[in-house]
């Protein structure tokens, strides 16, 4: 495997960041407390480590990997370096689903908000998959995605507008800002199945993404079952995004940035880039979550805020560099 060194390097980076995620926190553990954390599961330090820090770090890894992979697939599918899960409206749809669930008072039921987010993402994904089958041009798909995204945003604003309860409003708002804090193993386990299915669909679509580099018509006549591969790509990316949003709320820019970090190292190949993008996404999100915890503020920073703060300037940088390829 040609990209083994790259993937191992990225994996090592993720592990180092994850170790830092376990190490750092509000309470500093002493040497003796570390020993206790690993030997006595009922002790305080063990509680901190295994029910607070570890799930939080793992959630950041899983969400980051899902978003990085979804971003890489969408960029390949649309042949556009500025595509990410937000562009196609999947994140927006998932956010709307969660907002509705919270406003209707379903937040008390475990998993209801997450379920609503995932369902809304899947519905958006189905609409996109149908459209992707109907229209071959990536531009059309982007336009529909922008329309879906704006519409979902408008409906979410409408939910805000009409919400009678300020408490629910605050809750929706906190959710939309994105966070991996206070997740338990159950929250993570629940989203792993849709994520695995999504990742499988993306892996299947990889060879189609490479062929799409040469344009729609060349791909269509290449002998690959492009209609099926395209549908798998849209469905896979939607599932990954939906599950990520269900687990952590809306976390932008990771899907956009991760593929760019590894593109050159993976030979610009939109198929080979998938695994490195997932690893880079995981690393980015663990790092962002660390930043959210470490940056001293009165109220802890929300993960989505941190990724947007770093992501937006990066977006501008990518646009700057991408201008070169559009001239060609």
């Amino acid at each position, binding site marked *: 495997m040609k990209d083994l060194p790259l993937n191992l390097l990225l994996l090592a980076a993720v592990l180092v960041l994850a170790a830092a995620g376990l190490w750092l926190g509000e309470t500093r553990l002493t040497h003796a407390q570390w020993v206790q954390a690993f030997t006595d599961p009922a002790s305080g330090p063990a509680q901190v480590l295994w029910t607070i820090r570890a799930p939080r770090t793992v959630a950041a890894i899983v969400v980051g990997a899902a978003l990085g992979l979804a971003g890489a697939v969408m960029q*390949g599918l649309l042949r556009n370096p500025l595509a990410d899960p937000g562009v196609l409206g999947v994140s927006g749809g998932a956010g709307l689903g969660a907002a509705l669930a919270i406003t209707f008072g379903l937040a008390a039921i475990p998993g209801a908000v997450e379920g609503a987010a995932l369902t809304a993402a899947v519905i958006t994904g189905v609409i996109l998959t149908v459209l992707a089958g109907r229209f071959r041009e990536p531009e059309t798909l982007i336009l529909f995605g922008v329309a879906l995204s704006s519409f979902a945003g408008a409906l979410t604003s409408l939910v805000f507008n009409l919400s009678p309860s300020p408490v629910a409003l605050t809750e929706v708002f906190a959710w939309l800002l994105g966070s991996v804090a206070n997740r338990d193993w159950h929250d993570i386990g629940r989203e792993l199945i849709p994520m695995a299915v999504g990742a499988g669909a993306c892996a299947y679509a990889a060879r189609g993404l490479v*062929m799409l*580099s040469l*344009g729609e018509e060349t791909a269509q006549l290449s002998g690959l079952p492009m209609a099926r591969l395209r549908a798998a790509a849209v469905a896979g990316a939607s599932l990954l995004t939906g599950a990520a949003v269900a687990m952590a709320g809306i976390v932008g820019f990771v899907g956009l940035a991760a593929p760019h970090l590894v593109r050159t190292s993976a030979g*610009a190949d939109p198929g080979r880039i998938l695994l490195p993008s997932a690893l880079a996404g995981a690393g980015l999100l663990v790092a962002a979550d660390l930043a959210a915890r470490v940056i001293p503020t009165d109220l802890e920073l929300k993960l989505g805020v941190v990724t947007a703060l770093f992501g937006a300037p990066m977006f501008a940088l990518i646009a700057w560099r991408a201008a070169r390829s559009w001239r060609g």
Partner: protein
Amino acid sequence: MTAALTLTDATVKRGAATVLSAAGLIVEPGEVVGVVGANGAGKTTLLRAALGLAKLEQGRAELAGRDVSTLSDAERATLAAYLPQERRVGWNLPAWRVASLGAFERPPKEARATALRALARVGLLDLQDRGVLDMSGGERARALLARLLAASAPLLVADEPAAGLDPDAQLLAMDLFREEAKIGAGVVLTLHDLSLAARFCDRVVVLAHGRVMADGAPRSSLNVDVLAAAFGLDGDLTETAVGPVLAARRRRLH
């Protein structure tokens, strides 16, 4: 022998406009057929219709005697390879990788070897590792031509393969198509350079307003009357030492 490509009585509409009307095209194995015509005459549509990429309002498209609409994606790719006019490549893939996509279904090593052979044929072996977005337009066009050759299909369909190439590369590309025909492939090309069409094609099909106006040997297809009617040109083919050359000027409107 079965024709590599048979398009019969094909009509294609784009919106309300008829862009191809009752057009026919036959390409036998071993021959190079040029499709010429003014801008908007329906050349690209003719190729797309033959490959099953454009929806036929009426008529029938066959590859190697089989209705193209009944072929699976994989079957169609074994019967024909297509080089579209569109040359935008999405990512900065190295030239060898682009060429190897013509033979993607083979094992990676074999695909790469096939790609390098094809790059050598188009004179791009030196630039095999260069990203196609870092190349000039003509170099990129050659990398894409290499992909077409790497597919080694029994029918090669190329839409304006000579566009954007320098004079030497244009002649090289035409030589390569002749070589492919010599080993048995059917070749159909759209061309704007009528001299090139007359020199390298066995047959020339002239399109005007979506209809086939002439179909035959270059000298008979590109006669004075057809040049006037299809292109609005006053001119004729002149024999030179290197082959026929078109000498023409725009028709004066009286």
